[in-house]
């Protein structure tokens, strides 16, 4: 059991039952079943095109699923826009390409959603934003525009921007894949400290070191299915499926 597991409790944060998704005729996600407890950290890995990004994007309905059930924080995701918005307010997301708003300063990026969605007064939102920018160690960049920052700094701003909404769940969609090698660790450190505070996290990532330190469970996906699901020690030391073994040999060989 990892250190972070002590934050876990029995409350279910995300429940996915028999979820299927199609892009037109193409069956991208097949019978996905997953439950994530509050405080749990899940790492999702798998070869490209395996549907891992699509799966976590279904959790805040950036993608729609066509069959099955997704329940986030006790609310089921349906076409009801109000419920979708309610879930999105509680679920933060960090993207591979940061997706900061280039026309706004770092501080404005962080205060926009609290001010417009949560109706927080501006001063309060700015104070909160500065608090989180300090946590990700870039308060001095607050008045710059995203285009003036390095990739690693931008990704840390993106994390701070999500945290400003006080989310109960954080989704990470390959947060370090677009970064230069020397910037990966600064982003991972931020994510590790977030994990230590007990945040519920679902991370799609290829950083196996991160998975070993932080994850409570590792999920391996291939061709739209969950192939294997195990605690990191078991997953890395004793993988069961042939496909998992092959995948691990490929990425660990290069790492």
């Amino acid at each position, binding site marked *: 059991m990892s250190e972070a597991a002590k934050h876990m409790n029995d409350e279910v944060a995300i429940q996915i039952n028999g979820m299927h998704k199609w892009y037109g005729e193409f069956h991208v996600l097949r019978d996905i079943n997953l439950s994530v407890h509050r405080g749990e950290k899940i790492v999702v890995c798998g070869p490209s095109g395996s549907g891992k990004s699509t799966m976590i994007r279904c959790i805040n309905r950036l993608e729609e699923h066509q069959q099955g059930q997704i329940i986030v924080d006790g609310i089921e995701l349906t076409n009801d826009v109000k419920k979708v918005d309610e879930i999105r307010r509680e679920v933060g997301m960090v*993207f591979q390409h940061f*997706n900061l708003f280039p026309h706004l300063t770092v501080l404005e990026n962080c205060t926009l*959603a609290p001010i417009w969605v949560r109706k927080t007064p501006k001063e309060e939102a700015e104070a909160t934003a500065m608090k989180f920018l300090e946590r990700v160690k870039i308060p001095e960049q607050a008045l710059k525009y995203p285009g003036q920052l390095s990739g690693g700094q931008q990704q840390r701003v993106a994390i701070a*921007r999500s945290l400003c909404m006080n989310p109960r769940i954080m989704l990470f969609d390959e947060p370090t894949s677009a970064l230069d090698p020397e910037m990966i660790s600064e982003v991972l450190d931020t994510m590790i400290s977030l994990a230590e505070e007990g945040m519920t996290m679902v991370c799609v990532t290829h950083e196996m070191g991160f998975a070993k330190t932080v994850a409570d469970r590792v999920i391996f996906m291939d061709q739209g299915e969950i192939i294997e699901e195990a605690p990191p020690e078991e997953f890395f030391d004793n993988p069961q499926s042939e496909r998992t073994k092959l995948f691990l040999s490929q990425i660990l060989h290069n790492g």
Partner: protein
Amino acid sequence: MAIVRTERHPELPPPVTQTGVIGWMRQNLFSSWFNTILTIVSAYVAYHAIYAFLDFAIINANFAGTSRDDCTLDGACWVFIKQRFGQIMYGFYPEAERWRVDVGYVLGAIGIFLVLSNVVKSKKWPAVYLFIVYPVICYFLFYGGFGLEVVETSQWGGLFLTLVLASVSIFVALPLGIILALGRRSEMPVVRMVCVGFIELIRAVPLISVLFMASVMLPLFLPEGQNFDKLVRALVGMSLFSAAYMAEVVRGGLQALPKGQMEAAKSLGLGYWQSMGLIILPQALKISIPSIVNTFIGLFKDTTLVLIIGLFDLLSVVKAGTQDKDWLGLATEGYVFVAAVFWVFCFGMSRYSIWLENKLHTGHKR
């Protein structure tokens, strides 16, 4: 042997041939024999063309006097423009009432300055003034009411009419174009079909036929005895026409934005209109500034087409003037003057758009 550099290479200035006036001239004007000959020939031609024009327009031109007989020099007879200046500016607007137009100009200039410049920090009140209060003031000021004598729109003309046509069409076309562009990308089939239908219909016909339709066909659809003002009909036609163009310009800007921007906005819990208003449109409009201004400039010049439905804008007033028996044969002066006026306005818009693009630039500049 391995190589290890221990000292940093000193910083050197670039070679002289690369910088300064001489470097520039060598690179751009005299880089080869062929280019040198081209430079000399072009300079010769340019000198003659510019000299001939200056000779006509300024050096040998006639500025003083009141009638054609005062034009004794070979050059342009600007007396013609001077004598008809009032009509060129205001059309047949009664002379005693022309101050109303001037007041309108001043009030408008103040509003435009406050909204477009950097002077005031919050644009909220200037925008309310310019887009809501000012049009109402203008209606009463120009048309009449509240004790002011009514001036029928048939008496409006000249540069005044051109400016009314251009600014009303611009103010209507941009917001309407944005709505049409959003509608065209909407996920609701009916909204999308209506917008696509409107855009494709209007864009596929010439402005002249839209104006004809507005002036000839519109009355047929109205109840007996109801009649729209001719100017209003032209305004409706021009606004709808340019809105269709504007919609496509804005759609181009919307499509240039990465999908991630909308996803990031959604993932933060922003609704559709919040995402559009705070994230997507500010960026899409910024990218589209060159094309938007391009459309504005085109629209400004297209206002001259209202001459075919019998409105007297700047160009038609001057054209009418050249047919006056006292001033026959002075068409060149008239058209040069009209061209100069149009150039001043269009060049101004163009410079403003460049300034705005630089101001909104937030990329790698520090």
